[in-house]
């Protein structure tokens, strides 16, 4: 089941070859696997985002590996250089096989 995710860029007005800051956030519990369930005394299984991939056009420009030590609802920001008009796609994958995708358009006119 895909999760809720948001992508925002700043600044809103940019020209070709400008640096754009991409702020992303996804709603995910990011269970570390270290928390004990009070009733059963067992551990709540690890459940977290493992991979974040960023595609600009057809090219994969950034690959991230995450562990459970990243906070719940992980917020990540990074930069992209606006070299061309193309979609910017961010893909989140978690350790249960869920894939969430979000696409925004980079338009340099």
């Amino acid at each position, binding site marked *: 089941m895909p999760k809720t995710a948001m992508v925002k860029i700043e600044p809103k007005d940019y020209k070709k070859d400008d*640096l754009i800051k991409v702020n992303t956030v996804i709603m995910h*519990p990011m*269970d*570390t*696997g*270290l*928390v004990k*369930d009070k009733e*059963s005394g*067992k*551990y*709540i*299984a*690890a*459940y977290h985002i493992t991979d974040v991939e960023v595609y*600009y056009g057809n*090219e*994969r*420009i*950034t*690959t*991230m*590996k*995450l*562990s*459970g*030590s*990243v*906070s*719940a609802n*992980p*917020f*990540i*920001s*990074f*930069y*992209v*250089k606006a*070299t061309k008009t193309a979609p910017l796609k961010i893909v989140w994958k978690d350790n249960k096989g869920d894939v969430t995708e979000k696409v925004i358009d980079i338009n340099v006119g």
Partner: protein
Amino acid sequence: MNRRELLKGAALAVSGLTFGSSLLTDVFAVELADAPPPKKSYEEALKEITGGKTVADSDKVKLIAPEIAENGAVVPVTVEVELPIEQVKAIHILADKNHNARTMSVELTPANGKAYISTRIRLAESMNVVAIAQLADGSFIKAQKPVKVTIGRMWIINN
């Protein structure tokens, strides 16, 4: 509406809320495991990243993290490498006393324009946050900063 009706309404709303939350926990039922995931120490994580190479301290790596974090569950960390993006292959964020010290690894390309990453991490207790930059020539540079955590394991006990 008189006072009695208002109170009745409020009581109903509260019971509705509790009913709703019990439904929520049913939908998001958590899986249980007998054992926690394997431990990865700082030394192991470092070896995994560098393959045993030495990592030099460098002021080219700018690590921004709070000196005192009130809540260990959400510690903002920003890493910027003040080198041309062509020279930076990856940025790694480590937390040296966490169960899994290797927190995040980011592989960058020149299309990023700037060697920068910002996120929020968890710290189980007061420890060093380490940012390692992997350079295109195969060398590694790092910066580290001690972060004091006032409420640490809270997120382990009561997530």
